[in-house]
């Protein structure tokens, strides 16, 4: 089942096309990544999908319904973590969760369980304005989980966070996926996308320039097809994928003279640079 379906979607601000006839589908229980540099149109796309921005032309569907005409049942299945979604700074961590638990009529016991998941249980009595950036980000994510969403939009969820906090968020997202949540995330972090996403779309100037699983995309752009080897005597050697070089490489391995061996397929980042001539910043 497709949770998100987008056909020839266009968004214009004045005469400028920020989203330019894009098409994609996101299947249930997948993590879908939208990748691109700042200004590529990632946030605009999420805002269109959650109904915050109108659609200039084309079609978009969430659970088969048009985004700004979703019924209450579908709305209650969707959550989002956006940079412009704030917290009540004078309230405690628990109280912030309680506000939304009351709105969604969720059992208060769920709050503790979610806070434990995002490792904020010990800070539940802390006033939100006193939280660190990483903790704030985790609280925003925790709040988005209060209604047990079937579809979760995440706009740059780990942007500006330290590696340890990013790892915690990644693990949580994997858990959510396992429990049946479809995740749509935007990022300009290629490592994050490669690690997290089942499918990615590379966005450049509002257009999708590449689409597929991270592995497939990298393999499609693997022009060189070579292996880089570092031997035990610290020599760097390159072997092509042909019979002659394969034998040489096999000999090195047989002689136990290989320190490391790497294939040469590009990363998502190098694919993006190759396709657009621009770096992902």
């Amino acid at each position, binding site marked *: 089942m497709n949770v998100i379906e987008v056909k020839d979607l266009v968004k214009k601000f004045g005469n400028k096309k920020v989203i330019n006839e894009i098409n994609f589908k996101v299947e249930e229980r997948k993590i879908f990544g939208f990748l691109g540099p700042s200004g590529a149109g990632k946030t605009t796309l999420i805002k269109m999908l959650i109904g915050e921005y109108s659609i200039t032309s084309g079609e978009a569907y969430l659970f088969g319904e048009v985004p700004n005409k979703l019924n209450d049942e579908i709305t209650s299945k969707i959550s989002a973590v956006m940079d412009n979604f704030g917290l*009540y700074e004078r*309230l405690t961590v628990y109280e912030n969760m309680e506000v939304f638990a009351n709105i969604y009529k969720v059992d208060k016991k769920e709050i503790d369980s979610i806070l434990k998941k995002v490792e904020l249980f010990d800070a539940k009595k802390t006033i939100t304005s006193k939280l660190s950036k990483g903790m704030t980000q985790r609280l925003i994510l925790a709040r988005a989980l209060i209604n047990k969403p079937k579809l979760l939009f995440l706009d740059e969820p780990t942007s500006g966070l330290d590696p340890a906090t990013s790892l915690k968020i990644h693990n949580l997202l994997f858990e959510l996926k396992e429990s049946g949540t479809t995740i749509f995330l935007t990022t300009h972090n290629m490592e994050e996308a490669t690690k997290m996403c089942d499918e990615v779309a590379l966005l450049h100037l509002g257009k999708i320039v590449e689409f597929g699983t991270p592995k497939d995309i990298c393999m499609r752009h693997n022009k060189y097809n070579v292996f880089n080897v570092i031997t035990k005597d610290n020599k760097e050697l390159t072997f092509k994928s042909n019979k002659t070089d394969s034998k040489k490489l096999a000999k090195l391995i047989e002689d136990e003279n290989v320190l490391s061996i790497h294939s040469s397929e590009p990363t998502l980042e190098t694919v993006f640079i190759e396709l657009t001539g621009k770096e992902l910043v």
Partner: protein
Amino acid sequence: MKISHVNAIFKKTCLDMKRNKRQLFFFLLFPAFTYLFYFMIEDQHEVFSVMYLPINVMFCSLNIMAGIIAEEKEKGTLRSLMFANIKPIEYFFGTGLFILIATILSCSLMVPLIPMEGMQFVYFYLGIILSSICSQILGATVGLVVKNQMAANGLCAPITIIIGMLPTFGAMNEAFKNVSELLYTTKFANTAADIVYNQPITFDWKVVLTYIANFIVVFVIFHLVYKKKKLDD
């Protein structure tokens, strides 16, 4: 409109305001002034209750409503509420209910200085409720227009002075009186004066019509602004 959503917004506002010392101070400001002048000045000290009651209702309802909306817009909490399917009407009702109760409590602090009995209580609290509703709608309009809390305070001050003080100016000047007679704050000030000076209060259609007309005017202004700006614009 879902009552559970209104209830959630009401509880949220109570929790948040409990820790918002600056806004809570607004509810005590004019009762404190009234007590101060009441005990400082010996002659005709009851005039301060008449003067400060309509200003207090206006000041609390307008400033707090505008401040809450402006802050929620500024901090992005309003967006998260709207995303959680809170309808604007549910938001206004939940927030407005808190402000109404707090305004009633604030005005009740002045009650020991105003001798009242029987139906006078009914007219007194009815006046507070109707005036607070009109002021809250004005406050919501200000909240929609401004970008942040600072701007809300800046815009609320002149509105409070003009609409809240006009009954007092009208009592001193004939030209002001003609204008002030059209305002709900004047009608409430008149009710307060009748109670304070122990004059008989009778049901008057003119007063009712003034409240209704004021309500319609502020609501139309709010509606026009809302259509243009929306709640989280």
